[in-house]
């Protein structure tokens, strides 16, 4: 029995539910008084210990599940012929590993950070649950199972967005919810048709579309698949359903933004990979209007995201637009439907996850330490927190794609994939857009570094004056996770070969 691979799913979900329930019972004990009383330091410590322990164990289990070969579990039949089915394959492996690492790192960071947001117990409850759901999503072995956890992920990650309870936060959370739902339902629309025209909805490398059945129904199938691309693209911030990202990220607590941007947006990518390469099959799409439209959308998103980020003065919003743009790099890599492109896309999944988390953590530190959110307020910040800014700079360089950082590797593959794929004019336009966007990326990320280190005058920070201390460097608990991520962003670019091999193996298996 391989049922144990579900442990990394069940354990955090259960642990999270227990946290939330105990919250409710705690209320009852207080006799319905102020429900959100501040927990004491001791309580916080035990909470952190609990979360850390659960996450560590689950992450270990997840890694074990991911690294110990092929597993599959069939739970029960949800619909006729469609069980809730889990299967660990290479894609699952890739996502599970990276997600686990990032999740764990961000969790440590948040222990400190969340002090200033409050309501930790609720936050960690949902944080744990979402982790479990993400593991389930990575391990899902058929389309319906994946859809199931995709929906649950949306629902359970929403409280992370509205955490601080301000009006904007709630509105942003609802926006996030409805965009995701809209996308999910577009996806579901497609699932219905795939169910009819595919041999099975179980993920099979290269697709399961039955050409005999599909004969004569190509139009509706293409519409359905396009719907799925747009729909699941919503999570990945692809046009036209991208608008939730810039709304949701600035209001969420920084650890939440980090994982939303770094991880949850990738869930959309995962879903698209599953649909295109494991159910429909790339051959069905190649050369159709769907591919053209898809590529156009991704390129537009890449460019538009960068432009918007370039113009955006609020730091976290700028990062959010950056995510919009960067995730569409990945989607573009997928949309060219060539092995090299896909390799690039998978690499970029990993790299962007790491880098974007690092960037958001930096943003969190800025907010946490200085309470500043706008870019122009960061002038001279390098004097107060040089280590943080260095980490930021490395991550930025990686995102821009300056060799030898990780971003360069993935973008190289992406561009190469586009050129090789034989997609006509897109083979030229694609890399060009990527290049322009990279320049824009540099344009919106690097000024923070330059003005941070060289403000051109003495800038006093209000917070620093309050503290009577010119050193605003955060505590090690926050700095170390950031440093780890920044280091990974660079190191993965220096030693990319195992990852490249792994990614190209996946790409080869589906095409």
């Amino acid at each position: 029995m391989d049922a144990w691979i579900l442990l990394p799913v069940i354990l955090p979900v259960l642990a999270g539910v227990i946290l939330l329930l105990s919250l409710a019972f705690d209320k009852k004990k207080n006799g319905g008084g102020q429900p959100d009383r501040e927990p004491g330091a001791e309580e916080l410590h035990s909470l952190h210990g609990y979360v850390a322990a659960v996450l560590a164990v689950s992450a270990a289990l997840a890694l074990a599940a991911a690294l110990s070969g092929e597993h599959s579990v069939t739970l029960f039949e949800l619909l006729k012929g469609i069980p809730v089915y889990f299967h660990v394959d290479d894609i699952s492996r890739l996502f599970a590993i990276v997600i686990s690492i990032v999740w764990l790192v961000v969790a440590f960071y948040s222990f400190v950070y969340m002090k200033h947001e409050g309501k930790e117990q609720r936050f960690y409850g949902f944080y744990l649950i979402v982790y479990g759901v993400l593991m389930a999503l990575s391990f899902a072995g058929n389309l319906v199972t994946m859809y199931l956890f995709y929906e649950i992920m949306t629902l359970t990650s929403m409280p992370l967005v509205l955490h601080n309870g301000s009006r904007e936060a709630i509105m942003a959370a609802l926006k996030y919810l409805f965009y995701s739902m809209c996308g999910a339902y577009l996806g579901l629309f497609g699932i219905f048709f795939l169910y009819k025209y595919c041999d099975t909805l179980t993920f099979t490398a290269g697709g399961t579309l039955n050409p005999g059945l599909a004969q004569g129904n190509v139009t509706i199938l293409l519409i359905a698949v396009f719907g799925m691309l747009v729909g699941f693209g919503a999570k990945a911030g692809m046009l036209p359903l991208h608008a939730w990202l810039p709304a949701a990220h600035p209001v969420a607590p920084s650890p939440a933004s980090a994982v939303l941007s770094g991880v949850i947006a990738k869930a959309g990518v995962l879903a698209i990979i599953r649909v295109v390469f494991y159910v429909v099959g790339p051959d069905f799409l190649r050369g159709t209007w769907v591919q053209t439209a898809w590529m156009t959308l991704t390129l537009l998103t890449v460019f538009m995201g960068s432009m918007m980020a370039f113009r955006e003065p609020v730091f976290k919003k700028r990062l959010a637009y950056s995510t919009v743009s960067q995730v569409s790099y990945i989607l573009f890599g997928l949309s060219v439907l060539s092995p090299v492109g896909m390799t690039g896309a998978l690499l970029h999944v990993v790299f962007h996850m790491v880098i974007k988390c690092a960037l958001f953590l930096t943003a969190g530190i800025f907010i946490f330490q200085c309470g500043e959110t706008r870019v122009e307020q960061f002038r001279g910040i390098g004097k107060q927190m040089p280590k943080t800014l260095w980490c930021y700079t490395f991550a930025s360089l990686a995102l821009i794609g300056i060799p030898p950082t990780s971003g360069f590797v993935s973008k190289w593959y992406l561009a190469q994939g586009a050129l090789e794929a034989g997609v006509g004019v897109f083979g030229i336009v694609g890399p060009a857009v990527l290049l322009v966007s990279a320049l824009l990326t540099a344009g919106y990320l690097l000024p923070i570094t330059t003005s941070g280190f060289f403000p051109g005058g003495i800038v006093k920070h209000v917070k620093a004056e309050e503290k009577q201390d010119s050193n605003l460097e955060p505590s090690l608990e926050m700095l170390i996770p950031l440093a780890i991520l920044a280091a990974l962003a660079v190191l993965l670019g220096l030693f990319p070969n195992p990852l490249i091999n792994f990614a190209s193996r996946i790409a080869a298996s589906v095409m």
Partner: protein
Amino acid sequence: MSEAILAVVILLPILGGVLIPLLPFKNRTQMMVYTEGLVLIDSVLAITMLFQQPQGSFVLFRFTSNLTLSFHLDGMGTVFAAIVSVLWPLCVLYAFEYMEHEKHEKIFFMFYVITFGVTLGIALAEDVVTMYCFYEMLTLVTLPLIMHTLTREAVLASRTYLYYSLGGAAFAFIGVIFILIYGTTPNFTPGGVLDLAAVGDRVNILLLIYVLCFMGFSVKAAMWPFSSWLPQAGVAPTPVTALLHAVAVVKAGAFAVMRVTYYSFGPDFVRGTWAQNVVMALAIFTIVYGCSRAVKETHIKRRLAWSTVSNLSYILFGAAIMTPLGLVGALSHMVAHAIMKICSFLCAGAVICKTGREYVHQLDGFGRKMPKVFAAFTVAGLALMGVPGLCGFISKWQLVRAAVDSQNPLAYAGVAALMISALLTAIYMLTIVVRAFFPRKDFDYDTIRDVKDPGWKMLLPFAIFVIAIVVIGLHSRPLIQGLESIAAQLP
């Protein structure tokens, strides 16, 4: 003689209900015991009967030699009868707590119990005339329930309800006549009874009549453009809105539509004609229309009522697909929606009854104070949205499977409409949930200090419904197989 039980389960609540205001009850408890006992006995009888499946039919009364009131149990009837006999005792239980502070309780329970019998009558009707008679009767016995509070809005609402229902029945009546004349038998027969030789060149007329009949019966199922009575009828006490306007009455409309479509006119006769396109287009439009209105509405019960409008059209859409799979979809949504909607209505009712708050924006922070109610509401809401693992997804899946299978472009549009509707459902349900569980940060809980969960009479139904939602959602196989066996009888 075992067929006599068909009439017994129908007449028992009708007669027993009439007795409620006449019997000399010493106190409320006695009345409660009598009423609940009556309903419980009848529903136990009904369910026993459903398991026994009596094969014959029972003639209660003959209007004329070929016009009879007769009953017969078949697959579709079983489904509907099972829904109502399970839900009724629970809702009566809930009503006891809800109606505590209302006047004219006895009259209320009289009609409430009578309606049970009449609804069973619709479910068990053997022929189209019997169904029509009970359908009309249903209008009449539910009217006092809507009027119950006797406020101006209640009277206006009941009037609207009456006009719409009787009007719909008037058009449905035309269809009934045609079935009587052009059918080989008035009895419901899988696959239809039309005598195509007798129809001759009147096919188009007959299709027109089918459309009229469909629209007539779907007035009760609140199809656009006849949907506005349903939200208005929300002024009734919640046990009525929950049971009648989410299940019994409106499902009776949908049930009647399915009966005439699959058992009288016959799906083969209508499939692929303009008539199918017309009714399907109407259903599809209503799906989206109902949801949009629900999103705009801020009164909780009216919002749920608009949601019902939309969901009933899911059923009608399933019926309009006119394939056996469509019937499966429609029936499964009938079952699923019954549970989900009644659960959400009962939650809304608990809020209204216990706190007097009726608008969505007044619900801030209620999730903390009425955790059980809102947990149930959340589950129901998620099920309505069609989150996998809950029953709403199962029925939606069946519907869409039928639509995709039918290869009708309009049905594809219907699938899209279902998805839009699901999104809108998410909007109107989750905004309530989010508000209740995650109020603004500066929200002062002292303003809702007195809010708390209701007593066991209300909570027991919630628990049962939530369990049902999840169980059906996770283990739908037996249900779907049962429904498929019903559909398999269609030729």
